[in-house]
């Protein structure tokens, strides 16, 4: 009876037995995760180890799977935004904007230029915050805590800008279908200017600290390389693909929100190893800063921050309390009364770590018939066993860090 209660034998157990019989050497199984501090998220890897070297790996995911796609099928469009916030929570505004743009594409809504530029600014800020987290934690995983301290305060400053825009810091939910919930305050612009003034020096210092550091180079060069062909076959996009030398970027390939108005280059690496992924993200931060500066310089005059689409744009709360028309629109939108066409669309944005896509099918009811999130982390993580085969255990940690896999987006 007690045998029945034992868990089934893992396939590695058989390999270990066979290997023991062959030459007497000992292999072992190691559980990396699910709640290992170095995995920065709840996912498990069962590793087959020969001493310190990894022979094979089997990832197990789904520990925080929250059924977002199922929930989305039961919610009107506005109520889906908080779900997108909680996917890649390091750069939630990009997820938000991606979702609104998907709905706007569905409803044929043209967003005013100024609102588009504001969206670009906030998306690039989110990308910077995402890269700050990824690269500084990669530093921590190689044993260098200092860089993390240098730049992490600037993530706080970005959050303060979000706070000025919408009142929230992590899960921002700052927009509306057609634009923003409210116009940006002068204080938000002041904080943005201050950030643009102070951050570059810190980022330069951060780069200097790592990019020519002997220990960091030894820990990352030729660690976890992936060729361009393999990366493409695995579905890589974003910095992880660009590190392998492919200059694919959704912002350039399919520009959205006026990205075509800005000049920026797509940084690419050569070898697709951990060091290249780190450097590509570093370089992308400079491009993001440049895009923000250009957007501020080219910002159209006026205070237009949303499209005039009362059927879809949730009116400001103070108007709801004082104007009957706003109250009616508010009620209709909140109750999911807005007319939605029957359609199938796909919209993608360049998320912090790759192409974030939304495949939406509607049947005319107030909720999506099907909403599928193309989550870049989910795509990357299946290549992880391939990338760590033959590496040392300590390499597996930095490879995982450099892939920037966020558990919230992986599981969704």
């Amino acid at each position, binding site marked *: 009876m007690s045998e029945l209660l034992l868990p089934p034998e893992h396939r590695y157990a058989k390999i270990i037995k066979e290997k023991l019989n062959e030459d007497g050497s000992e292999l072992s199984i190691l559980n990396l995760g699910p709640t290992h501090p170095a995995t920065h998220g709840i996912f498990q890897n069962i590793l087959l180890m020969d001493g310190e070297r990894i022979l094979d790996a089997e990832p197990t*995911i*789904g520990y925080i*799977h929250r*059924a977002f*796609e*199922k*929930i989305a*099928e*039961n919610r009107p469009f506005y109520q889906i935004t908080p779900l997108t916030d909680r996917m890649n929570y390091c750069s939630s505004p990009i997820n938000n904007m991606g979702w609104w743009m998907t709905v706007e*594409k569905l409803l044929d809504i043209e967003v005013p230029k100024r609102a588009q530029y504001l969206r670009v600014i906030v998306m690039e800020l989110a990308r910077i915050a995402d890269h700050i987290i990824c690269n500084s934690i990669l530093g921590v995983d190689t044993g260098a805590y200092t860089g993390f301290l240098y730049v992490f305060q600037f993530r706080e400053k970005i959050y303060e800008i979000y706070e000025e825009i919408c009142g929230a810091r992590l899960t921002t939910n700052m927009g509306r279908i057609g634009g923003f919930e409210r116009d940006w305050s002068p204080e938000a612009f002041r904080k943005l200017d201050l950030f643009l003034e102070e951050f570059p020096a810190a980022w330069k210092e951060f780069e200097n600290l790592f990019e020519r550091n002997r220990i960091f180079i030894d820990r990352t060069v030729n660690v976890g390389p992936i060729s361009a062909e*393999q990366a*493409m*076959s*695995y*579905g890589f996009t974003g910095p992880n693909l660009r590190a392998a030398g*492919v200059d*694919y970027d959704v912002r350039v*390939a*399919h520009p959205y929100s006026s990205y075509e108005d800005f000049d920026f280059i797509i940084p690419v690496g050569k070898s697709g190893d951990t060091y290249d992924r780190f450097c590509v993200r570093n370089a992308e931060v400079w491009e993001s800063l440049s895009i923000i500066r250009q957007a501020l310089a080219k910002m159209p005059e006026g205070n237009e921050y949303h499209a005039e689409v009362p059927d879809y744009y949730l009116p400001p709360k103070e108007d709801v309390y004082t104007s009957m028309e706003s109250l009616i629109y508010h009620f209709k939108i909140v*109750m*999911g*009364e807005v*007319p*939605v*066409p*029957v*359609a*199938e*669309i*796909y919209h*993608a944005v360049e998320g912090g770590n790759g*192409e974030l*896509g939304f*495949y939406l*099918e509607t*049947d*005319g*009811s*107030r909720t999506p*018939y*099907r909403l*599928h999130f*193309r989550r870049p982390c*989910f*795509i990357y*993580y*299946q*290549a992880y066993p391939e990338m760590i085969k033959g590496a040392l255990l300590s390499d597996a940690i930095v490879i995982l860090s450099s892939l920037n896999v966020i558990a919230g987006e992986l*599981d969704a």
Partner: protein
Amino acid sequence: MALENTDIQDKLTQNFGEEVFNFQQQKDIFTFEIDADKNKAIILFLKNDPSLQFHFLTDLCGIHYPDNEVNKQFAIVYHLHNWYENKRIKIKTYINGEKPEIKTISNIFLSANWMERETFDFYGVDFIGHPQLKRILNMDEMISFPMRKEFPMEDGGRTDKDDRFFGRTIDNC
């Protein structure tokens, strides 16, 4: 010369005849349906043909249509992308509701492996030839496939969120 919709349509109809049909432009994406039995051959052709070169699988997911006739109760949607010409296409194929199965494309695109596992996990679609078709996000012991429409999020007896009470049906919009 840019890759036009008509080029894709001509190539496909030339090689696969009536197994590829219902070509249309949906917003910014050229889309068509294919015969489920031919999914592997058509996708391989789209990838390998030198003038088409749809070498990137952007997305793969399933959809459940319980109200359709039994042969069209599930759909698998493929999004492919040709980066050279910067052209996206969407392929939809319907499969049987009682025995949902379709050939795997995980040997054409490595990325399809987990996407197919996810679709199996949510809809119970059997991807024939898949190397490791087991649950990926839900627990192994589950016997139902939660994204199917017969599994509602909330108590089915609940009427306060019923579309009919908001004056909306599919026909009136």
